[in-house]
Structure formats: C-alpha cells, structure tokens
C-alpha cells in the first residue's frame, strides 16, 4: 500500500477508477501514514477518521473519487470551524460547507485532515502557529513556508498527494517553493472562495492547490475552479524575466537554478527570453501589504485589540495593533498603485506570455530565525519574499511556483506569472519545464523520508 501513497494525485485517482486501488484501503493507509510521519512534520493539525470514512462512503464517482486531500485551516468544514492558525481570529468562524469543501466533496475526494498554517496567515515562513510550527520535510529545522505551511509540508512529506491552500500575499507559492512543490495562485475570482471568513471583503485571497507537479495541480485546481483546466503545449513562448532586485538580489544557488529553468522553458517551447523592468514593483509590493492588512480591520475596535487572546503570539498581537496606525491616505494611494500596476501589466502581457522570477530569493531559512542572506545583506524572509510574491495578489493575475532545482539541499522555486485568466498557460509552461528537466525536481524526494519514523 505504501506505493499507492507515493503515487501522484492523478495516479491515485486513475488507479481507483480502474479498480486497481481500493479507496478504503488508501484512506486507511493515508491515516496510518499521517500517524507515522506527522509527529515530526506537524503538517496536519487534526484528523477525523470517522468523518473521512463517511465522506468516502457517500462520495460520488467524480474525478477525484477516493483521493485523500488535506485542506488548510483557513476553510470551514461542516464539522469544524477554521482557526486560521491562531488562538483568536478577527472574524467570527463557524463550521460550515465552504466552497472548497463542497467542490472536493462533489468531486468524490476525501478530506483526511486540516493543514497547519502561519498564525492569521501573516507570514511567508510558517514558523508561528497556535498548533506549533509545521516543519519542512527537506530539513526539519527549516521553515515550510507560509502561510499554507501545513498543506505544503503534508504533500512534500507524502502524507497526501494534494492539498488545498489559500494565497493572499504569496501564501501558496512561498511554501510551494520552500518544499519543492508546484503551487498555483489562480486568477482572482476563478477558484472556490465562498465560506472563507474574508470572502466578501478580500481583494487578494484565492484558494488553490499545492501538489507535486503541474498535472496534479491541474486536476485539483479544475475541481476548485469548477471547470476543466485544459492542457496545451505552449509554442514560441515569449518569456519576460523580471529584472532589478528580483534578478540581482537573489542567493547565487537560487539564481543559477532559476536561470537554467528559464533556459529550459525557452528551449522546450522554442521561445524567446528578454529582461523586463517593472518600474512600480516596490510601490506595488507595499500597496499589496497595505491593502491586504487593512481589509481585515473592518470589525476591529480598540477594545478588541486590548482584549486579544494572550495565547496569540506577541508578534501577531503587535502587528495587529500596528496595522491600525497606518494612515488611511497610504491605503488610498495603494489603490492608485494597484491601478497603475494593472495597467503596466496589461501592456507587458501584450509583449510577453509569462513573466519569470525566482519565487523566493533564498531557500527555506531556519524555523528559529527566518532570516535570509542575499547579495544586499541579511533580510527577514518576509521582507525578501514579498518582493516577488505580492504583485499577483495586488493585480489579480495568476502565478505558479515550479520546483526547478536545489541549493544547500533545499528546493528552489521559479515563479511564472501570466495575464488574467491564463492559469492554464502557467500549468502548460510548468509541464514544459518538467519535460525539459526529465521531471527531476517534481519527483525528488526529501531524504528525511527515507528514515522511518521521521525524527524531529
């Protein structure tokens, strides 16, 4: 049974559909593997075996019939309210049928657990959570990335073949890059969002898949999108490589791997590569942070901030209070920057099919001190990561992180961004990179998984 646990998500689905794999046995084996490996990873914060068995018993013969999935602690389930990785949320949370839950249920998938996440979704590292940090399966003392830390750790640790995360400021792509996975941040509004506690007010957050490869993301995201994401073969791809600090202020090993992958993509598609500048990038990055941070404040009062749960981390409490101090004019200006950035991108996408950059400028930093060393010096991982991660959330465009190499024994991710609605093209391009490198990086396995049980 362990072989079936290591299949791709679509491999599991196909084997079940062909009658070669018993979904009941797969579910029980998955729960057993979570029991074995999760103590070291802390990727899954809750399982509910009876609920999962009931879900399988009632599952329709959909495209993901019988496939075990982990869902981030950002989505309510009928039997469990989300906790957002925190001792206290700013918004009310109740159990319910969130849209991702319904999409998975209707596709026949089986939710086997809830994935850990960074507290309040507020960091790219995943090193703070009410449940304790999730760990990176590649090196257990390293950050798994955030805020979808648990979904990434669960898939990279081969607890499950697919997980549902959410991306408000890079929160699918950072952990995908840190854990060696493929993660798609869909075009705003294309994937299932209803039931999220910010669904009615957020202009940055989307749901999306984290999987080993682009084919699995295509399968799981098709379910979340409610439409088939058709595969194609990109030809003569016009690749823009984002310059400036996104190209220059990058750790050498990351830069080398990303440049090799861009060349792979160019060669595989018979395309062309050109460096491109995005003059408003710094302002766009700040605008994203200001907008994302302010959208959660509508229900806040000073009294509420004074009465925050003491179990919330000091960092979380301090940052919540600081958000209130940012002047309104800055957020209004951020809206103008959003308009500027969207117009600049619209022009760029007339010249380029995809824009490429490292997803993050350095590999996963230590959980104890998430600081990265770049040519410009030491930066917190959050300061460094947001540079490439924010633009897609600000403007609504899709973006994907693709595993393309290794540095210091840790995965490297390449980010590709495309015009609105061209999510399929990003998956096609990711698959072109996989073909070019012989699927080397999507099939790479964390060495720690060879040790049973994993030792934290």
């Amino acid at each position, binding site marked *: 049974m362990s072989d079936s646990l290591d299949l791709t998500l679509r491999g599991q689905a196909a084997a079940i559909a062909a009658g070669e794999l018993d979904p009941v046995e797969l579910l029980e084996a998955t729960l057993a593997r979570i029991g074995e490996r999760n103590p070291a990873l802390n990727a899954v914060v809750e399982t509910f075996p009876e609920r999962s068995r009931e879900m399988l018993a009632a599952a329709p013969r959909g495209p993901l019939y019988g496939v075990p999935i982990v869902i981030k602690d950002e989505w309510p389930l009928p039997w469990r309210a989300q906790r957002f990785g925190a001792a206290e949320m700013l918004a009310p949370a109740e159990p319910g049928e969130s849209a991702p839950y319904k999409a998975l249920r209707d596709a026949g998938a089986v939710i086997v657990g809830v994935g850990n996440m960074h507290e309040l979704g507020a960091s790219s590292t995943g090193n703070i959570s009410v449940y304790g940090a999730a760990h990176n399966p590649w090196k257990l003392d390293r950050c798994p990335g955030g805020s979808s830390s648990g979904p990434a750790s669960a898939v990279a640790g081969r607890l499950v073949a697919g997980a549902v995360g959410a991306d408000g400021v890079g929160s699918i792509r950072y952990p995908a890059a840190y854990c060696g996975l493929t993660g798609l941040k869909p075009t705003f509004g294309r994937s299932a969002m209803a039931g999220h506690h910010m669904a009615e007010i957020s202009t940055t957050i989307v749901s999306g898949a984290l999987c080993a490869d682009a084919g699995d993301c295509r399968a799981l995201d098709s379910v979340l999108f409610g439409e088939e994401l058709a595969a194609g073969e990109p030809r003569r791809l016009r690749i823009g490589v984002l310059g400036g600090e996104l190209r220059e202020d990058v750790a050498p090993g990351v830069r080398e791997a990303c440049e090799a992958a861009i060349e792979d993509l160019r060669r595989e598609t018979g395309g062309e590569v050109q460096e491109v500048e995005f003059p408003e990038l710094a*302002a766009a990055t*700040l605008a994203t942070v200001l907008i994302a941070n302010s959208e959660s404040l509508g229900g806040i009062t000073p009294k509420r901030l*004074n009465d925050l749960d003491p179990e919330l981390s000091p960092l979380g409490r*301090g940052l919540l*209070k600081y958000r209130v101090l940012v002047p309104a004019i800055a957020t209004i200006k951020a809206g103008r920057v959003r308009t500027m950035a969207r117009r600049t991108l619209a022009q760029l996408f007339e010249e380029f099919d995809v824009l490429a950059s490292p997803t993050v400028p350095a590999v996963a930093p230590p959980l104890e001190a998430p600081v990265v060393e770049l040519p410009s010096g030491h930066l917190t991982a959050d300061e460094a990561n947001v540079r490439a991660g924010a633009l897609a959330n600000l403007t609504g465009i899709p973006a994907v992180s693709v595993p393309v190499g290794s540095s210091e024994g840790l995965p490297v991710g390449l980010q590709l961004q495309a015009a609105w609605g061209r999510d399929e093209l990003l998956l096609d391009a990711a698959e072109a990179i996989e073909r070019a490198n012989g699927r080397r990086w999507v099939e790479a396995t964390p060495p720690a998984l060879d040790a049973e049980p994993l030792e934290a």
Partner: protein
Amino acid sequence: MDAPEHSDDFIPAALAAYGIEADEIELAVIRAAHQTLWPPVLELLDLDTSAVPLERDPDLSQAPPSR
C-alpha cells in the same frame, strides 16, 4: 524624517490616541514593523498618482479596460 527618529514619540502617542494598550514586547514588535514599513510608506505618499485613472471596484479577474 525616517522611522527611527520619530517612532519613539509617534508610536506611544498614536496608540494612546486610539486608546490601544501595548505591553513592552508588543511595543518592540510595533517599533520594528514601523521601522521597516514607514520609509516606503513615506515614499508612497510622495508618489504622484494624480494622473492615474480612477477605478471604482476594479474587476480583478480581468485586465483593466483599455483607456
């Protein structure tokens, strides 16, 4: 004026004006966040956006309408 020069005054004063309490650790976090965020905020405020077309509730699922 950069953040380190004025944050010792600004932060306690602003928190007090809102009636928000903060312990020493929270204050340290707030100061650190302010030192990181404030300089780019000032740059943003200096940015001339008067020529940027106004957009009400932009549809983020699509490209912006052409001018």
